[in-house]
């Protein structure tokens, strides 16, 4: 189908965008890359009266290394993350996730901020933000507000963003020496949303696991960390044997629901297999 009728506005600054969001309140939605929102409009799952197109706001896009973190502007396209030398060097987890996100034509338009602000439970970047301990920055009438990734994703397509707020960037801490990461997902076809996905980040220094962050996506209403699995790995030798021994904890960490493609039991099984595979891919694991 086609999108329902709406009025279109193209603010030139964050201030203008915030004014439009304040003016139209619940009737407005932010249009970033549109690679999820436009299908939702076409399916009539969403029917906002006003679309606030932020694509021409200068300064919302870009990747910058600043002191001890890397800042990703909300309007940064997936293709920019994919091709960025800074991302490849400092956030290899994000670099590894990029080829899994849809297809080249979608990655040319889709944005980092759009993916995070939508909060699709099967999306890759929210899980990466969670595993890497990113902080989101939202602009509102009263200025900017910082929200830790673990507090940002609230449920199915629900985030901590309040009405009238605009996600403007995220800051990722630069990984410390000895840290490694790995990423994997299972999808029925290349570029599909994940049936299950795993993003891990943690230290394997001294051939021991520590400070492990294991984020799963596609198995709940939001990306989530596997707290029991992380604890079971803490301080253990960075080995396949430790991983095998700890994977059973995932049963208590997850409560997946069946969807069109798989039963809850299948998802649980796939999550365990994939988490094992991904953990074993980390640098420093023998």
């Amino acid at each position, binding site marked *: *189908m*086609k*999108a*329902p*009728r*709406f*009025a*279109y*506005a*193209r*603010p*030139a600054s964050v201030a*203008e965008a915030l*004014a*439009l969001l304040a003016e*139209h309140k619940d009737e407005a939605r932010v*249009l970033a890359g*549109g*690679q999820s929102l*436009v*299908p939702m409009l*076409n*399916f009539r799952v969403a029917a906002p009266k*006003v*679309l*606030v*197109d932020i*694509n021409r706001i200068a300064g919302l896009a870009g990747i910058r290394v600043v002191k001890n973190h890397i800042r990703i502007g909300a309007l940064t396209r997936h*293709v920019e993350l994919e091709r960025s030398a800074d991302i490849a060097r400092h956030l290899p987890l994000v670099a590894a996730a990029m*080829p899994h996100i*849809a*297809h*080249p*034509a*979608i990655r*040319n*338009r889709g944005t980092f901020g759009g993916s995070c602000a939508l909060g699709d439970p099967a999306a890759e970047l929210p899980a990466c933000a969670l595993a890497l301990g990113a902080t989101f920055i939202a602009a509102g009438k009263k200025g900017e507000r910082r929200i830790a990734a673990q507090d940002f994703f609230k449920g199915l397509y629900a985030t901590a963003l309040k009405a009238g707020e605009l996600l403007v960037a995220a800051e990722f801490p630069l990984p410390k020496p000895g840290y490694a990461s790995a990423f994997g997902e299972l999808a029925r*076809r*290349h*570029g599909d949303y994940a049936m299950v996905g795993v993003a891990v980040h943690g230290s394997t220094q001294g051939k021991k696991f520590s400070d492990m962050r294991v984020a799963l996506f596609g198995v709940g209403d939001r990306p989530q960390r596997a707290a029991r699995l992380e604890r079971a790995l803490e301080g253990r030798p960075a080995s396949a044997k430790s991983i095998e021994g700890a994977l059973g904890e995932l049963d208590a960490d997850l409560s997946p629901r069946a969807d069109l493609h798989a039963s809850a039991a299948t998802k649980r099984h796939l999550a365990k297999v994939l988490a094992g595979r991904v953990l074993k891919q980390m640098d420093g694991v023998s």
Partner: protein
Amino acid sequence: MSAAAETVEISLTVNAERVKRSVPARLNLADFLRYELELTGTHVGCEHGVCGACTVRVDGEIVRGCLMFAAQADGCTVDTIEGLSDSREIEELQSAFVLCNALQCGFCTPGVLMAAQALLRDEPDPSRERIREYLSGNYCRCTGYQAIVDAIEAVAKARAARSK
């Protein structure tokens, strides 16, 4: 342009020609090209970004024509399959598609050619696996993928041989 409106004035370049129109905000780029400009080589399949039949180039990069509104193309340079064909940019690919029988009904072909050209521009010598991965967002319901990959690979190899 900061007040919200249901009709939007746009000015853009399509296949090297300047175009000015007044369009409904809800009109997507693919429908704009087809109905307003009668450039019907851009096909509309799924209308939710899955099938790739509506692939066009905006400011040099391929995008889904169904997932972008015409209003958003204001000030942009848009190239469609007609433009790439007339400029002979995809001449080799077109010949290879004919030689390899890489199309049956032809519905997916414009989108496939747009994607193939983008791939070969950025990666002149892709493996078959890479071609398949890159084209994973372009569905062919006649399931002629083998021949499509053959054709794209043949062009890449011919170009590589010439540049030696």
